[in-house]
């Protein structure tokens, strides 16, 4: 155990899996950096330094920098996965999905089904998401519901450094295409993380705390916010169970339903757009399966149905906050 940032935890997971399995390769724009340039090699290590140090250890044959051609290199990662490698490809910002989506959702996601169960496509696509960086509409989205919508993709949304390491190792070892979403605001968050490799299974939610009154389901960065809200509510005598599903596909439906059956109240927090998102999906799940247990209508805490704005004051108003979550909990308690 030692203290590691979310960034370091991800880097360590990559390095450990690359040591263990020679078929694991890493690729992406400036994942090492300095390609063909007169200055330093490994000049960037990814745009926010997540892959730094991998190239010096594993060489350029296993840490491949790419031209800015997402459609080609994400597709190449998919093709390599279908033919014997375990690529971890980085789509720098999830917003760039638009450039390469076909290779992910028509190709990778459907091979196994279309080919009658014969294909195995163990590709991981790591990608940054989320608001809070003042990065405006094309660099701040939470697009995991779009991936979750596609049968054949597994979708991972780690909420902390510990979660990130175990879930990434699981992602690399998993034999299906996995979209691994890293919240850019979490990179510098630090916690105790085991030094040795470990896995966290998909589809098993984590209860970060247990309480009697309200179930809060939250994803990614919102898990920390939900816990802060729960801390504040505790002082008012309201205790919450906070459920971190960890993966949106597969989704641990049983844990969510069970928790709502115990508490009778549900608040779902999602940083993604509200329409057809995880908040709506989880609300529907509970409405269908635990309706009788509900003592109050379900509340969703999401941003409004707008793009992410640039101005800090607007962006802060856009993102769900611990205060908004606490208000929603008070609302279902009223």
């Amino acid at each position: 155990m030692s203290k590691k940032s979310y960034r370091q935890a991800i880097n360590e997971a990559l390095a450990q899996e690359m040591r263990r399995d020679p078929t694991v390769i890493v690729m992406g724009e400036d994942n090492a950096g300095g390609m063909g340039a007169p200055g330093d090699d490994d000049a960037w290590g990814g745009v926010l330094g997540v892959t730094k140090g991998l190239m010096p250890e594993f060489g350029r044959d296993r840490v491949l920098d790419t031209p800015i051609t997402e459609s080609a290199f994400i597709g190449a990662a998919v093709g390599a996965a279908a033919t014997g490698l375990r690529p971890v490809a980085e789509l720098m910002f999830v917003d760039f999905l638009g450039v390469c989506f076909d290779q992910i959702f028509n190709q990778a996601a459907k091979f196994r089904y279309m080919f009658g169960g014969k294909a195995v496509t163990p590709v991981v696509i790591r990608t940054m998401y989320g608001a809070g960086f003042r990065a405006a509409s094309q660099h701040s989205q939470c697009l995991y519901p779009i991936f979750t919508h596609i049968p054949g993709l597994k979708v991972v949304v780690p909420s902390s450094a510990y979660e990130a390491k175990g879930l990434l190792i699981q992602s690399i070892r998993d034999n299906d295409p996995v979209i691994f979403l890293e919240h850019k605001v979490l990179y510098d968050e630090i916690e105790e993380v085991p030094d040795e490799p470990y896995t966290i299974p998909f589809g098993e939610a984590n209860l970060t705390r247990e309480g009697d009154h309200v179930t809060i389901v939250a994803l990614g960065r919102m898990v920390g916010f939900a816990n802060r809200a729960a801390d504040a509510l505790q002082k008012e005598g309201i205790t919450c169970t906070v459920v971190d599903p960890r993966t949106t596909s597969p989704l641990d439906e049983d844990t969510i339903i069970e928790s709502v059956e115990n508490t009778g109240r549900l608040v779902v927090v999602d940083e993604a757009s509200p329409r057809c998102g995880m908040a709506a999906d989880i609300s529907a799940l509970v409405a269908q399966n635990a309706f009788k247990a509900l003592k109050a209508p379900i509340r969703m805490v999401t941003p409004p149905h707008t793009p992410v704005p640039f101005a800090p004051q607007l962006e802060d108003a856009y993102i769900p906050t611990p205060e908004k979550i606490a208000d929603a909990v008070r609302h279902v308690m009223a």
Partner: protein
Amino acid sequence: MQLNREELLQSYRTMCTIREFEERVHSEFSEGGIPGFVHLYAGEEASAVGVCSHLDDRDNIASTHRGHGHCIAKGCDVNGMMAEIFGRGDGLCGGKGGSMHIADLSKGMMGANGIVGGGPPLICGAALTAKTLKTGGVAVAFVGDGASNQGTTLESYNLAKVWNLPAIFVVEDNGYAESTASVWAVAGDQSKRAAAFGMPSYELDGNDFFAIHQAAGEAVERARGGGGPSLIHVKLTRYFGHFEGDAMTYRQAGEIEVARRERDPLRFFRQRVTEAGVLEAHQLDEIESEVKRLIDQSVVLSKAAPPPTPERLLTDVYVSY
């Protein structure tokens, strides 16, 4: 194409405005006043100005993440731009876009762009509008060397050619895409790519305003006359990091200093016009001080301006809903 004195003064003014704007954004960013990702265009002025000085309000351009220079060259209001970069309510996009999304459609400026390779297809569309409505307009996509490899860019070359669109692709090759050298990332070469799509092309020194102005003039004339698309490849130097905060360890020590000293596009312009006796140094000096005042003022105004009002979060998602 001969430029008269007025045009020369105007071109110099625009290049100086870009330079001063970017130098100022650089210092304001380092003082913490500017949020978000900011990519500066200093060093590349001759390209934006050499091309855009042939354009008017009928014509559209699409820019990149490194868009301030293109915006200024296409006539965007400098105060509005600065306010946008500061995230103010009276910014050119109401503070909702920021540096990477400055746009003014009334000036034919279709936006900086956060997506590398986002512009060329849009420019095919703008060119199609011009052709269909017979406005006489042309459309110009600026792309970086990195963006020149995107499928969207290469597909746009093909589409522009087969539809015979009044489109111009300007590949601004500053040697790097982030930390990756264009000599590594670009297979083949830019003008042969153009040739492969049947487009005329120009290989130019991007510090030479006059060469760019000349080539762009030909390309614009060809496009306006129904002669189809062209490609202009300019080699230039970016004077700052990929974005503000980039340590630039991938560059050679002294690379920027040498470029600033020996190949600076503004200095080159100055030298040419004063040596030819067309303009006098004091006229250019005056422009420089005027521009300084203008940019100073834009920063003062931006700092004093209020942020967008909270209800603006919910507006503009649709025209109507």
